[in-house]
């Protein structure tokens, strides 16, 4: 690991001033950053340790019915907050389907949004990667790319965003609260992550020094609590990133869909909100034919970026499955294997 200066600022303005200097990186849980530094993928000259900044580790109910989650709230603390899990069950399920218990105890809300792709060519400093070295080319195109993007990719980059947490968040209209040199501003999560285009090295809306201080959920996000699921296909039972995933939330009344939210994970460089599919669902009968139509709409613009055409059909099927599960109702208790499509009976073995 390259040598770096270590700074632990006492206030948010001090942190922003320190991190605005070129070569700086914020450190919170460190679960992704230290991995990247050990591999030489990123080599910051200055680490700005924000892990003790005051007031960023709170979960606050807002007067308007919304929720404000501090950027330093640990993934495990959020998922196991009983009131949170009751109001936003698919977010808790997504959190608990990601990483391991050890990592969830360290990883933070803000860090989850900013985690880097797990594209193996991004991690291999001997390979060409436009995200790592602008203009270097993309070794994933024509490489081992069966897990890469099928939506929103470009010839410059076909990597996916690895987060589970962000998928239900974008479905629920989450907003990122950012503090920077110009003060505080709000950016919707849907607009926060950027598609690669010609500049895959630019991954989000942050400017130098900008600090995520909180993620907000609007009041309406809690209205889906009774019918919401996150489902995730993995290549092993647990502790793996999504091949594809879907967050589905419905409000059904008299067999008709009165409100619908749908987002996909593992398919693009950002958590993918499927608005065209939501339009298909809205006002329609809540049945499998409607769900299949929504799945087709969600993947209408998909195309393989390599040896990954199977992900398009897999994504369609996980959309139908997630919508069907959401309609059936949020489980009383989180399944033993959160987000697994193979786990249905509490206590039963997934492979029985």
């Amino acid at each position, binding site marked *: *690991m390259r*040598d*770096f*200066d*270590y700074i*632990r600022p006492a206030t948010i303005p001090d942190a922003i001033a320190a991190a605005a200097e070129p070569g700086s990186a914020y*450190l919170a849980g*460190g*679960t992704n950053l*230290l*991995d990247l530094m*050990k*591999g030489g993928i990123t080599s910051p000259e200055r*680490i700005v*340790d924000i*892990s003790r900044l005051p007031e960023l580790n709170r979960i606050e109910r807002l007067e308007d019915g919304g929720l404000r989650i501090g950027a330093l709230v640990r993934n*495990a603390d959020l998922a*196991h907050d009983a009131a949170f899990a009751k109001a936003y069950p698919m977010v808790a399920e997504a959190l608990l389907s990601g*990483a*391991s*218990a*050890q*990592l969830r*105890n*360290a990883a933070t809300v803000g860090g989850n949004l900013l985690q880097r792709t797990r594209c193996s060519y991004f991690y291999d400093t001997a390979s060409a990667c436009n995200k790592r070295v602008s203009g270097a080319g993309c070794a994933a195109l024509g490489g081992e790319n069966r897990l890469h993007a099928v939506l929103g990719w470009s010839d410059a980059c076909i990597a996916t965003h690895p987060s589970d947490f962000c998928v239900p968040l974008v479905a629920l209209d989450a907003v990122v609260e950012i503090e920077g040199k110009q003060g505080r501003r709000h950016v919707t999560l849907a607009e926060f992550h950027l598609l690669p285009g010609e500049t895959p090295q630019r991954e989000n809306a942050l400017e130098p020094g900008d600090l995520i201080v909180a993620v907000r959920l609007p009041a309406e996000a809690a209205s889906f609590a009774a019918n919401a699921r996150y489902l995730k296909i993995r290549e092993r*039972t*647990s*502790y793996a990133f999504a091949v594809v995933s879907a967050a589905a939330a419905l409000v059904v009344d008299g067999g008709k869909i009165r409100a619908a939210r749908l987002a996909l994970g593992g398919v693009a460089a950002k958590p993918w909100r499927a608005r065209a599919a939501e339009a298909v669902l809205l006002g329609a009968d809540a049945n499998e034919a409607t769900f299949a139509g929504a799945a087709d709409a969600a993947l209408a613009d998909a195309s393989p970026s390599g040896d990954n055409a199977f992900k398009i059909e897999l994504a369609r099927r996980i959309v139908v499955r997630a919508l069907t599960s959401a309609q059936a109702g949020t489980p009383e208790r989180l399944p*033993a*294997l*959160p987000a697994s499509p193979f*786990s249905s009976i*509490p*206590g*039963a*073995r*997934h492979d029985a």
Partner: protein
Amino acid sequence: MTSLPITLTINGHRHELEVDPRVTLLDLLRERLDLTGTKKGCDRGQCGACTVLVDGKRINSCLALAVSHDGANVLTIEGVARGEELHPVQAAFIAHDGFQCGFCTPGQIMSTLGLISEGQAGDDPERIREGLSGNICRCAAYGGIVEAVLEAQEQLAKSDRRTAA
């Protein structure tokens, strides 16, 4: 970068140390303090061999900068037994063959202590397996590990009841 002063309480003992900011908690334990019970497996947060409790919570010590944990209370495998008396989790791992080569075992035991204190798994083997999925065992002693966790929980609950009575 010059070394920075930090204080850590490790297994009940207070240590005042000067550390290079690049040093992970794992390397500090093993290379500076000779607490080699905590193992370095992948060193990238994927195997769980380096699991320790920091302020009561299980984390991967390979992905923690020591300097960032200034002031923390750390429990490693060396601090689990009471003298010669094994902790019920340690005894249960032996009784149920919860290991073969033993390399992952300190991490498995520390992770089990975290799992039990989190209280999310109960006596459901599937939830225990899921809760310990961050600890890889290349000898695949998973069957014995789950049995050990179930028995250890039972023993701990019994001794809690005795203490309460």
